[in-house]
């Protein structure tokens, strides 16, 4: 299948491709919220709301309902992002009532330093000794909660490499499919990781064994490149891997001129060129 069409953008960057690929997962009636350092998710939500999902509900920084930010500011956890909100959600009681309840905010777009073949994630420590780690990462924050509360998780990663995509994470700070198969169901956990959008490809998980599987290749990327950048054996789809749908002219124009003219979305990416 070839996703290119008449209105495919002539030029776009990998961050813009990832934004459009993530936006496609959010629909009218969904509720979305973002945490800190989440330029790509915020751009995806804003893009979805301006295109196919005008009824996508957004709680900026998990604080401001239906905000009207002028553009993406230097932080995604700041007042400039929740400007003109209809509601400030009190966090301790109201916001956590919604997050702990499986009925609300059912999709999250999140990042993780390390992810393994079953979608378990690690933002805690690199190394074997938890109390003398090689690298102390920021910590799980709310991710450990989201991963166990029946939410659908859409991961983004700007730097697909063997350091970040590993056979087994050093520490599970967010539950994926654990050891795979029905391990997650046996703990009574609904939801789970649904897709992973990296700078090279889009991945999902095998319905039965729950191992990560290539879903589509970004334009110009080869299976070999992805395999080489992945620290475990990535499952392949039936037949020829399709190409990730590139952003349209209108999407790229909205991202560059309206949503993120300051290019905040590019932070965290090594390469800024087109794939």
């Amino acid at each position: 299948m070839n996703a290119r069409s008449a209105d495919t953008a002539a030029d776009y960057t990998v961050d813009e491709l990832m934004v459009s690929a993530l936006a496609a997962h959010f629909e009218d009636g969904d509720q979305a919220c973002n945490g800190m350092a989440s330029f790509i998710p915020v751009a995806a939500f804003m893009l979805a709301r301006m295109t196919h999902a005008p009824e996508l509900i957004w709680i900026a920084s998990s604080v401001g309902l239906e905000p009207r930010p002028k553009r993406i500011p230097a932080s995604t956890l700041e007042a400039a992002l929740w400007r003109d909100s209809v509601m400030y959600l009190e966090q301790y009681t109201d916001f956590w009532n919604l997050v702990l309840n499986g009925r609300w905010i059912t999709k999250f777009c999140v990042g993780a330093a390390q992810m393994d073949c079953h979608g378990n994630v690690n933002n805690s420590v690199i190394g074997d000794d938890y109390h003398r780690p090689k690298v102390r990462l920021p910590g799980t924050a709310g991710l450990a909660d989201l991963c166990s509360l029946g939410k659908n998780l859409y991961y983004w990663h700007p730097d697909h490499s063997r350091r970040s995509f590993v056979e087994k994470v050093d520490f599970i700070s967010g539950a994926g499919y654990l050891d795979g198969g029905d391990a997650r169901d046996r703990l009574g956990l609904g939801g789970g990781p649904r897709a992973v959008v990296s700078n090279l490809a889009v991945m999902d998980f095998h319905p039965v064994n729950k191992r990560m599987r290539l879903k589509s290749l970004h334009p110009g990327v080869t299976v070999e490149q992805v395999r080489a950048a992945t620290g475990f054996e990535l499952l392949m789809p039936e037949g020829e891997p399709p190409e990730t749908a590139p952003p349209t002219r209108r999407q790229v124009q909205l991202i560059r001129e309206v949503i993120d003219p300051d290019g905040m979305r590019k932070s965290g990416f090594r390469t800024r060129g087109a794939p």
Partner: protein
Amino acid sequence: MQEKSSSIEKAVGMIRDGDVVALQNMATQAAPMALVREMIRQQKRGIGLVVLVGGIAVDWLAAAGVIDRLIGAAVSMEQFGLCQQYRAAVESGRVRVEELSESLLNARLGAGARQLPFLPSRGAIGTDLIAENPDNLRLIDDPFGGRPVVACRALVPDVALVHAHRADRFGNVQYEPTARWPDLAVMPFAARRVLVTAEEIVDSEVLRRHPERTVLPGFIVDAVVEVPYGAHPTSFFPAYGYDDRFHLAWTEISRDAGRAAAFVDRQLRAPCSQAEYLEAAGGEPMLARIRKPASTGG
């Protein structure tokens, strides 16, 4: 109502070495930095810090050797990156971390506030956080036959540190309409003592105009001190945004232990007052910059 107004020295004097101190802070937002600096000036030692998402305050406290353990969900300066001095302290074993997810930390503090032995959550089930922490987290059955829950043991900090927009001298504390993170709602109710800095100390009559904005009743507050820009270099909406240049300078300096130590002495220990500290941090031009609407979401 009882008099609660105090000096920053007297207030922080209530903190003893070894205390568990709960710190209001959300990454680059709303940390009671003047209280943090005074802890450094008074050379507190062996402090256990409780923080939801800690920022530069944690890095400074680690660099100054004030803390030897941390209970929290994350430590990050968001776009300014990881806290390097904190990282070094943890990686060398000088600071021990009890990592909790946000719902587990809220539950531990909530149980402390309500003098309940524990509160349950369904968060973090399946993670290594639970296996790693049997003293405070246990998977228990539902007595009614439903799904198991994580019992989160009550956490009662010795002291809670809060920064607010205004307060009266009786310790009644008001917060302007803006983001209200969970730590503000629960830490002061859970802790044995509550120390508050406020942008301004006002007459109680001012509070009575907006009783719905008062978030802490004076009778649970032990000391209140007026400290304008008391959250600098973190943001305190709608009053001011975070100081990006100050954060950037620190991220550069903090890569080197020696330079970090010198910064702590020069910028944090040496200034004898908030005015001196602000002057050394850029003075009025800096304050004008962080007051700009662009910085405060106006």
